[in-house]
């Protein structure tokens, strides 16, 4: 557990990991016996295309039905041994495809044919599940035309090295990816967000507008960068309505590499942080179970420990070592039971610590009272819910240990659902 500073007048101050640190070469995790991949569409029993027993090749595009837009790229060669429903965050229903791997690796050739002509259609067809998980659906949406692409070159949270490692080592691939994105989407306006300390390494070398951010948390949060770029933050309609779309640098690098090699990248860079805070950089096939990575670094997980996808401030806790790393898993953080601070059911005592620490000037003490009561609309209209940049600092300092960040995420999700339903009902 972290400790509050003795002089409580001082605010907690965190810094992101810097790219200037010593570069360690990542450990390549061997291909595991089984990988699990997710197709982000509900499970259907009647899939004619995908059945247990079918053999797949590395880089093959897997869909439940031919016409389905949702797909996943197989990261290994092997045989499908199980297809089952999977319940993801916020109750989303996905389909989990488990593949037993084969020793002899064979590459699928469908992409290399399509790679000759980079187009938005090709990108949308082959890349949504590639490392960095780029989302192209917003680019195809006519209602909210996108005018700016932002390439996110930071580490999304504390302790994580992945983002800057990719930026540092794959800069040529990123440049190639920017070219492909520009040609395929027709969007001229591309910005890349990089740390201020290393701006000189990128400005002029990259074919994009360089947007620097500071190294103090939460300056590199995607919403903070959006605010620095536009002076605004998205409301319940999301970033799409602002005409701005984010890509991770790793995704752009993956696009650049894929078109150069004619082969889809299937490996993800992951920072693994053990219980003592020691960090390891790993390269693993997408779909590798977390347990395999932890084993590779000799990290043991005991009863009531915590495993987190992502960093300590904004990550997601997972419930099993068998869960696979996804295309968006930048880090795996393991916490010992003794380091975990539990939430409590105390009410807000109005101490004002959250007000002092909030970088967005959100009246957290008032907002949380509305959110606790489920009055999300009032929270959004009166108490600046949509100014929250989702850094989690309010929950970090709260003496009542209220899960404030969770309330905020839930409120945004619920309001987003209402807004989406209303939009769908419009003639």
């Amino acid at each position, binding site marked *: 557990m972290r400790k509050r500073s003795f002089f409580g007048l001082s605010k907690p101050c965190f810094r992101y990991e810097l790219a200037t640190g010593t570069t360690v070469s990542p450990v390549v995790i061997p291909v595991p016996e089984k990988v699990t991949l997710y197709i982000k569409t509900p499970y259907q029993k009647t899939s004619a295309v995908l059945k247990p027993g079918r053999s797949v090749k590395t880089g093959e595009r897997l869909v439940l039905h031919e016409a389905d837009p949702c797909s996943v790229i197989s990261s290994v060669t092997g045989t499908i041994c199980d297809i089952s429903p999977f319940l993801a965050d916020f109750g989303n229903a996905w389909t989990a495809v488990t593949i037993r791997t084969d020793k002899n690796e064979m590459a699928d050739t469908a992409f290399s044919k399509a790679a000759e002509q980079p187009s938005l259609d090709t990108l949308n067809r082959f890349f949504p599940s590639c490392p960095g998980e780029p989302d192209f659906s917003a680019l195809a949406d006519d209602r909210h035309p996108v005018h700016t692409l932002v390439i996110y070159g930071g580490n999304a949270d504390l302790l994580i090295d992945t983002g800057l490692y990719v930026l540092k080592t794959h800069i040529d691939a990123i440049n190639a990816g920017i070219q492909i994105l520009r040609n395929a989407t027709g969007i001229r306006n591309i910005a890349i967000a990089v740390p201020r300390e290393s701006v000189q390494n990128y400005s002029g070398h990259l074919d994009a507008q360089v947007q620097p951010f500071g190294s103090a948390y939460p300056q590199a949060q995607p919403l903070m960068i959006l605010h620095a770029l536009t002076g605004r933050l998205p409301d319940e309609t999301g970033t799409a309505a602002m005409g701005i779309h984010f890509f991770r640098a790793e995704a752009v690098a993956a696009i650049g590499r894929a078109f150069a090699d004619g082969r889809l990248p299937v490996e993800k860079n992951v920072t693994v942080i053990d219980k003592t805070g020691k960090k390891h950089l790993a390269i693993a096939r997408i779909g590798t179970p977390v347990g395999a990575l932890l084993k590779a670094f000799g990290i043991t997980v005991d009863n009531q420990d915590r495993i987190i996808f992502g960093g300590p401030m904004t990550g*997601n806790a997972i419930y099993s070592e068998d869960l696979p790393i996804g295309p968006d898993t930048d880090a795996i953080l393991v916490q010992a039971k003794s380091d975990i601070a539990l939430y409590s059911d105390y009410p807000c005592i109005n101490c004002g610590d959250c007000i002092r620490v909030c970088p967005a000037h959100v009246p957290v003490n008032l907002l949380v009272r509305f959110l606790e009561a489920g009055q999300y609309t009032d929270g959004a209209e009166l108490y600046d819910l949509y100014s929250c940049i989702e850094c989690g600092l309010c929950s*970090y300092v709260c003496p009542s240990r209220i899960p404030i960040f969770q309330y905020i995420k839930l409120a945004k999700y619920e309001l987003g659902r209402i807004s989406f339903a209303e939009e769908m009902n419009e003639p």
Partner: protein
Amino acid sequence: MNPKKTLLVSHAPFWHDGGGIPERSYHTLLAALPAACAGIAFYGAPALGVICLSISTAILWELLMNRIMRRPITVGDGNAALVGLLLAMLLPASAPWWVVVLGTFLAIVIGMQIFGGIGGNPFNPVVLGTAILSVAYGRHLDFDAGLVNFTFTAFASSTDPISALKAFGPEAVSHLRYLDLFLGKQVGGIGSTCGAAIVLGGIYLIFRGFIRWEISIAFLASVYLSAALFNMADPTRFAPPLFHLVTGYTLIGAFFLATENSSSPVNLFPMLIYGALGGVLTVLIRNIGAYTDGVLFAILVINLTNPLVDKIRPRAIGKAA
């Protein structure tokens, strides 16, 4: 793999700074202790009796209310003990037992628990309890009447300086040295007279971040300024500003009462307004009002303004202008 192994799952963030309500309560208790000890040193065993009775009954009232309302038992967080200690510090050492028990009932039950416990109280429970007692049973809270059988050899005056000021004007208290008053050599509440100890505790709380310094400083500055204005207007009727700072409940009010979390604002300008308003009201009540000491009623009034003044806040980022 051992099938019994379960992982803890919760929402981000996964770090916490380790602070909590018990920590805040116990450190505030610690900060209040020097002033309470000074009171025991001056007034002896009766003061100790009042403090013990007050803390224990405050805890019992809270336990009782937790049981009646079928809420989780919250006495362990130290908040009830803190309310009990602060209440005792405002009472004279001569307070009869039933006044103490009634006082903690008013503070804990009427002041806090019926609003839902910690964090829900619109008024500072200690101030509310003491204010009701002083209106209803003023005789038992009158320091001169209560402490008439005590002998104060170390004190320059054996009467409450602020009552003397009210009754006889500044001339009657002109022989008192401010340093003596600041060191606690005056008749008053058990823990409210020794300004040095209170300031010590207050500075500790400010540096540890347990109270908001803006409120305390604004309160004291405003007491000083408004008393100075009165004093300049008519020195024969109104006492000098320093006298107001070191007598009555001014210091304990500024550091321990006005800063109570739930009933005070959290934004910068509201805190300054809130504190300043409290200081002005204190001096107004003392100088031209009916009551001897204005701090209790001033704090009740600024507690009322808290939700209103706290609407003044910085614009959140990303909002369309």
